[in-house]
């Protein structure tokens, strides 16, 4: 499966957070790499959507849609902060 980047989940995150999130800064809880969500390594059909750290490949976000409800797991993120 081909890896994309966080730009590809801008629409999904807009639905989940109600705001533009690709410019938000995420901090990996595993290795501390910091960077915009747009730069995460994203797999769209994992099943579900998986975003990994570009530094250490740790799983930072998992989003799965079940019967119209999106389940969001952000445990891999130490921080997620909107900058604008």
């Amino acid at each position: 499966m081909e890896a994309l980047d966080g730009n590809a989940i801008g629409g999904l995150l807009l639905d989940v957070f109600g705001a533009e999130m690709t410019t938000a800064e995420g901090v990996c809880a595993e290795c501390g790499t910091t960077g915009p969500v747009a730069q995460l390594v994203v797999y769209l059909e994992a099943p579900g959507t998986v975003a990994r750290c570009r530094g250490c490949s740790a799983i930072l976000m998992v989003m799965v849609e079940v019967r119209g409800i999106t389940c969001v797991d952000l445990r891999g993120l130490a921080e997620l902060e909107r900058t604008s």
Partner: protein
Amino acid sequence: MRTVVLGVPDWPGHRAGQHLDVRLTAEDGYSAEREYSIATAPGEAVAITVERLDDGEVSPYLTEELRHGDELELRGPIGGYFVWDPEDESPLLLVAGGSGIVPLRAMLRHRRRSGSNVPVRLLYSSRTLEDVIYRAELDEPADGIEVAYTLTREQPPGWSGYARRVDAELLADIAWPADDGALAFVCGPTSFVETVANGLVELGYPPNRVKTERFGATGR
């Protein structure tokens, strides 16, 4: 390849480089969603350029079935990272692989419409000359814009452009020197983007000055 102009009620306006999501829903409720870069500048009618993928779920409909007056379900505009604003006066380096040209074309149109005169270098990699999108528009002479093509699979007789996949040497030919403080936007298939982005960093570009957007066969 087809460019579709969309009349979107209450469109809030977009930035150059943003995309939108198109969702198609079948009568049985099955739905498929794909993202498409917006091909036009802020202030212009919203348009997307769609490449037909033979095994696609969305692109065959958009390129062949969609008729004037049909309605589409859209979400957008989306994204704030891969966008260019004329307030940034750094030289621009635009690098496109295949249909990765679409958001970069929006940036070029925005530059012209906003009266910006930042110098631009565009490197556009395509398989063949026929695969080059917006060729007439890109070939129009424009002050401060240099366009270089590379055709990776087939070149017409007498072709004077590049004729290979983008590599470190080709990038070094085209890219602004790192000391110029250029801002780079790279869009294309994942492997293309990785090659170009790594190459630019090796040339001395700070990683945060290399903005990237990757798409796959199921994407745009």
